[in-house]
């Protein structure tokens, strides 16, 4: 024991770090901040350290070359002992990190921790969030599969819409004219050197400020922040009701960090690594590219925005959001901290969470995309074909063969791009159906050039049978009068 102490002494006489470390560890924090609400920052740091470790492990095998990356991932998954587990940890670590960073941010926002004097801590935090998202996106690129390839295409298409500089940005982003070897290499450099380096620096500053300025006290409704008096009040608080961070508060951080690591490892063990999906071969076009979980909301947004709004929304939206986040501590740097007295803050968080959640949910089943195989894979429900004329059955065939089913469902099977047609006859008369099929409109292509008159007649005859039992199909009342009696009779006989 004495020998150990002597060795410790020897080092400390040279490093002189023991005193400052002890000072940081034992700095007083307000007693009520030793709360389970205050553990997310340290949890984010823990997952970040895990990402560094598993990332270095993956780099031992991974090859950042467009011709080798995919097979090196296969080797990690199947050949290298526990390679799949390290990949799974890194992949799940990414999801956990984004999630924890977001929760941390919401907590900081709702507890008013971004207010004076912690504005810069918040601003650095905003950059840390952006870097975390940058890591998530570039990491998805390094998993160089079909999703990564076409995801880069989407990124390039978005970038290309920047006025004037668009093509330059695309070439800079791809490292050449197309998505290829140079693209993967530069995303590797970003993911492994540039962004992590910046992350480490920013995390260090972020932490330094937490120590220097003190952890945000538990917000009490009615205790307002004022620039003139806050610092003194905070010192009073830590002096009167303070306790040393170690061990008074840190045990909760430790428990939560261990719990997060355990949950992460459990996910990795149970669900396994992400992909890689098919080979990044651009000639294989039978693919439905989708981004990773935390970008699904964007994927949904891109299909739901009106086309004319898309480019401005894509280019101005993110800038406004980032500027808004950066300006937040200056716009409301003083005043009430407690979320109990900040209804707009709470509603904002709820609104954003519900919006993002809804978009993410929608992206899970992409109702806006045609189901590419519905026309050949989803049969017409049997009861729609019973007691039908030959013409109507022929119409059902046209309906399938012409891929109407890819966008329109029958019996809940088929695409959801267009309306379900189970009761279309109730909504549209024969004339309206014919017009809609031939001319399209309302986001439906015109089929006039692709249907013979006979096919159109059959198709519309089939569509006219699609109405619930006991509910009559729509009909144009004026038509009976306009047509001469004879024709009207023939019409009625047909019905």
């Amino acid at each position, binding site marked *: 024991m004495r020998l150990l102490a002597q060795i410790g002494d020897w080092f400390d006489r040279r490093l002189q770090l023991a005193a400052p470390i002890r000072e940081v560890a034992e700095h007083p924090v307000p007693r009520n901040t030793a709360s389970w609400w205050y553990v997310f920052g340290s949890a984010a740091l823990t997952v970040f350290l895990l990402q560094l470790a598993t990332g270095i492990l993956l780099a031992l095998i991974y090859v950042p070359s467009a011709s080798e990356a995919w097979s090196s991932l296969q080797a990690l998954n199947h050949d290298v002992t526990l390679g799949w587990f390290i990949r799974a940890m890194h992949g799940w670590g990414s999801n956990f990190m984004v999630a924890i960073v977001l929760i941390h941010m919401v907590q900081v926002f709702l507890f008013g921790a971004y207010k004076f004097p912690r504005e810069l801590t918040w601003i650095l935090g905003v950059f840390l969030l952006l870097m975390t998202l940058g890591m998530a996106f570039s990491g998805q690129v390094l998993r160089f599969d079909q999703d990564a390839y076409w995801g880069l295409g989407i990124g390039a298409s978005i970038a290309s819409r920047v006025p004037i500089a668009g093509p330059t940005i695309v070439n800079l982003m791809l490292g050449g004219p197309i998505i290829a070897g140079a693209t993967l290499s530069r995303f590797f450099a970003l993911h492994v050197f540039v962004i992590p380096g910046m992350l480490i620096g920013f995390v260090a500053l972020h932490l330094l400020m937490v120590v220097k300025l003190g952890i945000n006290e538990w917000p009490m409704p009615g205790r307002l922040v004022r620039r003139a008096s806050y610092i003194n009040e905070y010192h009073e608080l830590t002096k009167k009701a303070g306790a040393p961070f170690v061990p008074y508060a840190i045990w909760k951080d430790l428990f939560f960090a261990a719990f997060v690591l355990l949950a992460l490892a459990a996910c990795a063990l149970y669900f396994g690594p992400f992909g890689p999906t098919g080979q990044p071969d651009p000639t294989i076009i039978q693919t439905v590219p989708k981004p990773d979980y935390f970008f699904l909301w964007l994927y949904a947004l891109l299909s739901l925005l009106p086309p004319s709004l898309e480019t401005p929304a894509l280019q101005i939206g993110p800038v406004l959001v980032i500027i808004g986040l950066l300006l937040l501590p200056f716009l409301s740097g003083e005043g009430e901290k407690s979320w109990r007295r900040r209804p707009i803050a709470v509603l904002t968080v709820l609104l954003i969470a519900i919006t993002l959640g809804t978009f993410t949910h929608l992206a899970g089943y992409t109702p806006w995309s*045609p189901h590419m195989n519905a026309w050949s894979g989803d049969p017409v429900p049997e009861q729609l074909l019973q007691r039908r004329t030959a013409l109507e059955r022929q119409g059902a065939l046209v309906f399938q063969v012409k891929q109407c089913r890819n966008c329109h469902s029958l019996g809940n099977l088929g695409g959801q791009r267009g309306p379900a047609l189970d009761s279309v006859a109730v909504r549209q008369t024969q004339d309206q159906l014919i017009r809609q099929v031939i001319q399209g409109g309302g986001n439906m292509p015109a089929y006039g050039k692709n249907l013979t008159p006979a096919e159109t007649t059959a198709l519309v005859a089939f569509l006219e049978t699609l109405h619930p039992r006991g509910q009559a199909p729509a009909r144009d009342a004026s038509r009976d009068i306009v047509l001469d009696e004879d024709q009207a009779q023939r019409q009625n006989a047909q019905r």
Partner: protein
Amino acid sequence: MPDENKISRRGLFMKLGILFNGLVATALAVPIVRFLSSSVTRGRSGSYLSWVPLGRVGEFPEGETRLATFRNPYVMPTDGKTVETACWVRRIEGEQVQVFAVNCAHLGCPVRWFPQSGLFMCPCHGGAYYRDGSRASGPPERGLFEYPHKIENGLITIQAGELPTPGANVALLGKKPPCAS
């Protein structure tokens, strides 16, 4: 007491040292910036684009649209399969041909051709195009990108080499397919 307005010998040397470093940094920045921007400057000089053979006209039946592949003209040794590119070739009749990029004009996902309904459909956000490449429905703001092509001695060649994007530098963009009325 040294005069406060007077520059000391050491102070001068420090300033000269900073100036010297600034000069060296500027000189070193030239090759660094040129290296970093090489992918852009090369694109601007147009050397990414060239004429690529696609196949003989006879390989594409009249009135049909077929998938063809070509090798991107600009290749690096580590590119692997990514330089293989697909495109849709529509032979209208005789030597009348249209060559479309597979990349959706919305955000670049690969569109698929459905001959039965005569539509190109995109799996990502639901864009659809008619057989002549014009926009049919969905989020795209324009028709499919069309590669400039020529036919010499029965051989179709296209001008290609850059990822077709909705931005505005590629030769493909000059030629917008007519909008379906």
